[in-house]
């Protein structure tokens, strides 16, 4: 198999261009999927027989929680590559992923609270699932803080990569917490092996919302990684050329 395309993608100017082409597609498709998912979830899907209309929070809570874990894995893998091979692009992806992941972790926590209040009677309980998700938020914020604490980008990225890798132990804890401990949080409805415990009318909007959230998170990471690359490589010829191509108005993307 020919891997030249892969090596080429790893070079900053190629990735910069590739991200610039891909990001609008992810954004556009993500927005379309989100519009469908929210319409179908809020209007078309019937109310749940137990939770009534409050179950509709699933269409924002589950995608946010799924993306919060997936992005952490992406960040940790990028961190591993950055530490072992000192690959600049991996460092940029690591730095770019942290704020996006933090935003979806915060959303998962907030929507979980808004769902917990009417269903459990409490916004918050110190339960394994909720607590480990809160730790996930702290890990993301920790990576962002480490990044901000260093002036030298390579040193920052190494520190962030180490924290990201150490924190990866929390990911299975979040995922399996509902099975390992008695939790107020329910087990998986959809994201598990076997048949989902949900009717198609309710499940299809959820799949669409998951797809939409992954696409939009991808768009945000590509844009931030582009920024990180421009900043890191500011003194190189390709960045100068890119800036010249952008012309007189530097605000046009």
């Amino acid at each position, binding site marked *: 198999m020919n891997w030249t395309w892969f090596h080429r993608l790893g070079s900053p100017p190629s990735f910069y261009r590739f991200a610039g082409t891909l990001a609008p597609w992810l*954004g556009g498709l993500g927005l379309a999927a*989100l519009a469908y998912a*929210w319409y179908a979830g*809020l*209007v078309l899907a019937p*109310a749940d027989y137990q939770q*009534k*209309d*409050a179950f*509709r*929070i699933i*269409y*924002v*809570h589950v995608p*946010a929680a799924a993306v919060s874990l997936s992005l952490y894995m992406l960040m940790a893998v990028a961190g591993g590559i950055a530490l072992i091979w000192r690959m600049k692009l991996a460092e940029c992806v690591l730095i770019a992923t942290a*704020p*996006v992941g933090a*935003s*979806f972790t*915060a*959303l998962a926590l*907030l*929507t979980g609270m*808004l*769902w917990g*209040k*009417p269903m459990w009677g409490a916004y918050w309980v110190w339960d394994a699932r909720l607590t480990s998700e809160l730790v996930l938020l702290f890990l993301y914020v920790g990576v962002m803080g480490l990044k901000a604490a260093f002036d030298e980008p390579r040193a920052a990225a190494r520190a962030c990569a180490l924290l990201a890798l150490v924190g990866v132990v929390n990911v299975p804890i979040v995922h399996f917490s509902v099975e390992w401990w008695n939790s107020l949080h329910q087990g998986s409805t959809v994201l598990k092996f076997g048949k989902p415990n949900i009717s198609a009318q309710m499940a299809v909007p959820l799949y669409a919302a998951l797809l939409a959230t992954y696409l*939009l*998170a991808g*768009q*945000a990471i590509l*844009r*931030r990684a*582009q*920024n990180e690359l*421009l*900043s890191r490589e*500011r*003194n*190189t*010829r390709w*960045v*100068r050329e890119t*800036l010249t191509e*952008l012309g007189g108005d*530097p*605000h046009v*993307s």
Partner: protein
Amino acid sequence: MSAEFWNMGGYALYVWGSFGAALAVHLWNVLSARAQRRRLLDSLADSEGEQPVDE
């Protein structure tokens, strides 16, 4: 849209609060990346004239 729809069976605060928060997060992700780019391009424009070095 009917009042019944907006009322969400009495769970309006929780349902609309959740969807509103999600909308805010999606918007923040787009706008903050854009603002970061704008700041960066401004700072790069300021440092124009320094010799480019190739690695």
